[in-house]
């Protein structure tokens, strides 16, 4: 069951990274294309790509990551690398949900026939890729360091007292 949860978390996170790479590629095409119809198509498609891939994968990555942390010895706040990944995931998902408004606005511009060409999707996708790669490195290397909320002994041991923060 734990391996299944790990597969789900890795799958969701890899899917998220892949979706962001696609968004970056679309953004670059939107900036570089000469054909106005291609530019229009890019900004029309970025919003549904966001709602159908970016948002579901980011939420799935967050949920499976939480399950993974809480269901294993790693815990959610025990190790710095897990805690930092959680914060990064929460920030990235929050920014993505807010950024969907911008993608919707760009899609509206394109739908109305205006030139929606903008560097914003490229900048946001590039930043997201950096963040996801950092999360990937943390997941693979699992750098040492336990937080102040680390139990001195495994939970359930008689006489256990957590280390004060």
């Amino acid at each position, binding site marked *: 069951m734990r391996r299944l949860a790990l597969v789900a978390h890795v799958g969701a996170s890899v899917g998220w990274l892949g979706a962001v790479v696609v968004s970056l590629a679309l953004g670059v095409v939107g900036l570089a294309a000469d054909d106005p119809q291609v530019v229009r198509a890019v900004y029309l498609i970025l919003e549904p790509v966001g709602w159908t891939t970016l948002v579901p994968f980011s939420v799935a990555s967050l949920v499976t990551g939480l399950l993974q942390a809480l269901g294993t010895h790693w815990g959610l706040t025990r190790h*710095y690398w897990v805690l930092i990944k959680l914060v990064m995931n929460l920030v990235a998902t929050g920014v993505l949900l807010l*950024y969907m*408004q*911008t993608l919707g606005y*760009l899609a509206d*511009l394109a739908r109305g026939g205006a*030139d929606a060409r903008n560097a914003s999707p490229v900048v946001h996708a590039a930043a997201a890729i950096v963040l996801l790669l950092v999360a990937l490195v943390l997941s693979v290397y699992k750098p*040492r*360091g336990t*937080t102040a909320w680390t139990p001195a002994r495994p939970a359930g041991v008689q006489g256990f007292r957590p280390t004060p923060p």
Partner: protein
Amino acid sequence: MSETRGSRAPRWVKVFAVIGAVVVVLLVAMLVAGHGPGHHHGLGAR
């Protein structure tokens, strides 16, 4: 890197904290400057 528990965070965590703080300050500055959701006036070439 040594296992650290309690008040002393490893160096890599301090580096992450500094980078995170810089990113947060930049994000807040950009939001205050008008960039972000709901501030689309500068987007697109109408």
